[in-house]
């Protein structure tokens, strides 16, 4: 009797282990290829003429793996639009933050087991890859891409915007500051939220310089701000009324909450800081052609439109394909302060200083 019970426990344990292992089954490239019918000679009309060769090469690969912090549902939306233009190429998406993606990829690459083709992130996360020459150079401009970065290695997917957010119930319109400096007012003591990474101010430092920026943060800290972790919780704190203003949340999140009826909006400050979200195809990528095709599509008018449709992000400067927010800011005469390639070192340095200050680690 007892032996039977022990046998039962043992079997349950073993079964769980086996089941656990089976849970990690992945769809293989050959399975994907079957769904593509393997026919690369027929090119749909939706494929532009200058993309045919690249598309055919991509179709042979049949899939690509995209590492990005973007929500899975949004990337599924992108994939749907991408496949309307370029059918037969599967997008495997893996939700991962750019910092973790970079170190994970470096580890994979050094062992010769690369599983990723393409990743995105602001330029702050690329030096580790560029120093190791791990991002592939490509003739993007031949395929209609207007602007490339880091010697034709990276191109833009979207702009991550950081306007000053405010709660529309707690702050009357006539009380709104017109400049970032006007926010420094004793009446907002204890009513300002600041995101721990302070990326917003690091971008403004491109215009202001380090000294003014650090002084500005000191002034903000004098007002006893609520320090918040993450751009999204920061927006949530404004919407909920915990804080009246917030530095460090995203424009798309403000728009999303507004659409859902939350009492939140952005302030028409004289300037709005923006991170350029860049993407590149990585060295030893298993599906480089599919990755280049997808990267170019994400930068194209169709790709930018899909990103605005599903995630609410887009381009706010340096292009004709401005997003809704970009148009609104242009109309309001707001200056866009985007992270420039030549300012990377300055941005990285000031970000470290600002983060140390705001987190009381200096």
């Amino acid at each position: 009797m007892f032996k039977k019970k022990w046998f039962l426990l043992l079997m349950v344990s073993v079964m769980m282990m086996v089941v656990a292992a089976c849970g990690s089954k992945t769809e293989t490239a050959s399975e994907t290829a079957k769904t593509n019918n393997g026919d690369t000679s027929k090119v749909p009309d939706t494929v532009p003429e200058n993309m045919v060769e690249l598309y055919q090469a991509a179709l042979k690969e049949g899939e690509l793996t995209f590492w990005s912090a973007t929500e899975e549902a949004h990337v599924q939306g992108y994939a749907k639009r991408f496949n309307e233009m370029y059918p037969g190429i599967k997008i495997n998406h893996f939700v991962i933050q750019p910092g973790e993606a970079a170190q994970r990829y470096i580890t994979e690459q050094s062992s010769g087991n690369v599983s990723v083709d393409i990743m995105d992130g602001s330029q702050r996360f690329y030096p580790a890859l560029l120093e190791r020459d791990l991002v592939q150079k490509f003739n993007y401009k031949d395929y209609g891409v207007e602007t490339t970065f880091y010697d034709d290695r990276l191109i833009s997917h979207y702009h991550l915007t950081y306007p000053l957010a405010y709660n529309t119930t707690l702050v009357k319109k006539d009380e709104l500051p017109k400049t970032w400096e006007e926010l420094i007012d004793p009446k907002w003591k204890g009513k300002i939220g600041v995101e721990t990474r302070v990326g917003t101010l690091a971008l403004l430092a491109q215009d202001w310089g380090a000294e003014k920026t650090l002084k500005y943060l000191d002034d903000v800290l004098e007002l006893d701000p609520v320090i918040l972790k993450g751009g999204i919780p920061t927006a949530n704190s404004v919407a909920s009324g915990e804080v009246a203003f917030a530095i460090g949340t995203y424009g798309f999140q403000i728009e999303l909450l507004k659409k859902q009826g939350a009492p939140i909006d952005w302030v028409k400050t004289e300037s709005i800081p923006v991170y350029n979200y860049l993407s590149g195809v990585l060295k030893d990528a298993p599906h480089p052609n599919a990755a280049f095709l997808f990267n170019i599509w994400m930068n194209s008018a169709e790709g930018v439109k899909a990103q605005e449709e599903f995630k609410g992000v887009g381009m706010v400067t340096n292009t004709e394909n401005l997003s809704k927010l970009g148009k609104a800011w242009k109309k309001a005469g707001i200056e866009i302060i985007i992270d420039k390639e030549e300012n990377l070192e300055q941005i990285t340095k000031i970000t470290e200083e600002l983060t140390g200050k705001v987190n009381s680690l200096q």
Partner: protein
Amino acid sequence: MKPSTSVNATNLPVLLPKKQWYNFDFMKMLYLVMFLIVSYIVLVPMVILLYSSVGSTKGTLPFEQLTFTMDNYISVLTNPLTYSLLGNTVVFTVGSILIGISIAVFLAWVLERTNFPGRMIVFSLVMIPMAIPQMIYAIGWLQLLNPTNGIINVPLQALFGIEKGPFDIYSLGGMIIVQGISMVPTAFLMIAATFSTLDPTLEEQSAVCGHGIGSTVRRITFPILMPALLSATIFFTIVAMETFEIPGTIGLTAGIPLLSSQIYFATHPPSGLPDYGLASVLGVIMLVFAFVLIWYYQRVTKNAEKYATITGKGYRPTRMSLGKWKIPTIIAVWGFILISVIFPLLSLIWSSLHAWTVPITWETIKSSSLKAYSDVLNMSEIGNITWNTMAMSIGSGIATFILVGIVSWMVVRGPFSPRARRLIDTVAFLPLAIPGVVIGLSLMFFYIYFPIPVYGTIWVMIIGMVTKYIAFGQRTMVSAQMQISKDLEEASQLAGAGFSTTIRKITVPLISPALFYIFIWVAVHAMRELPVLVMLYSPSTLVASTLVWSFWEEGSMAKASVVGVFLIVAFGLLFYCSRWLFEKVTNSGMKTKF
């Protein structure tokens, strides 16, 4: 009256000089195998931790650096900030341990040793916060007690006509209270396992001698519980030093950074690669603390037999009557449940019904929506995620309890030299001091390079979980095993039973409550774990905690809260199903505890 009256030189736990009823060579082999397994699990992250602490890792990953340097140590040890952070950390740790362990001891005693009504429901409720990811739990507290618009503060502001609520969670006190309360479920499990196997005869004799409840608890119960209390204290000392969720959500606004804040920001920089050198030095400092604590523990509990209360002499679990203390005890227990479980749980459910945090008004109640539930349930990967989560958490629970069940038996009962026993016990405790991200990175690196095909599978996640949680299991199991007298095993041998029969029929049924607690604890923590898994999961092995994290990062508080609610439901199912299975298999009569 002292519980150690039966101690003498002949019944110390070192069994070597006595006649053995099992084959000693087999024991040596078992020790060697278990030592190799535990070392394998522990040494991979340990080596990476030590290696990166003496390397120049600014801008490089630990395995890339080839230059040995002491700069990391010099930079940390000569920086006045380190000592300021250490000071904050000590106050935070001591304060939260005092709160957490006091409440846990009280609850464990009430639920395991008295005739408190409704023990089963209280037991289940106490466990609930374990299933909620720490970050969401901390945010739940902020929603309740932030001074501007906290759900509890708002009505009090209106009542007293004040601008800010009377409770300000953004303070050292607030951090300590929330951390202390968040420790209660785990501390409760560690201590309840010992309470449940405590022989009541000694307490009864104390009562017969005319001592009241307070005197009996002080003179009898607490001394017997010493190993469990020490275990829990040691465990939480390291946990409180390492944990970042509560210092990160509450402490930053309070302006009170801790050592864990520095580790977090070193490993999650706003740009570039993490500074593993700096984080590793801080990890090594914690490792030193861990060594000192485990050395002290082993010294205090050297004579394991004196804590044995389950003997062959009439062990029968009975309960004390609360008498006139019944009503105050009910108020205290349910008051705690209300504050630590019901409020955060309602806050979580409320968050899951709204796209952003809103106050509770008639309008917002009417505008509540189940859309987030529908969105989560309609995700194409939800089936796969559920499957992965259950397989990974149950697999981790099973692997850990089997491992620590054997290792702790060897530490407490094994026929080995004290040095050998201390060695394996210490090795099993060390991973607690290694930051989760270092464990994750080490395992990723190791299994990418070595020809063991587990990278990107559930298996590597299970290995990560066992590494992270072996210390908890070991401390809990050693305390529980110390309470079981070896007389019972020897009696079994005298009656003609073999080694395996004795283990199966005597040892395992007696320690089954502790095994069950370890299984549940590890499984539930694996469900919500993030720092280790974030480096180990892959597109095909998404689990609930990584889903919460991605919802969180993407901005859907409601969806993240929905997953939190689902985790609680999954925990409830796991709890009852596994308890039923444990009862069936071990014949332990665990239900008598409820």
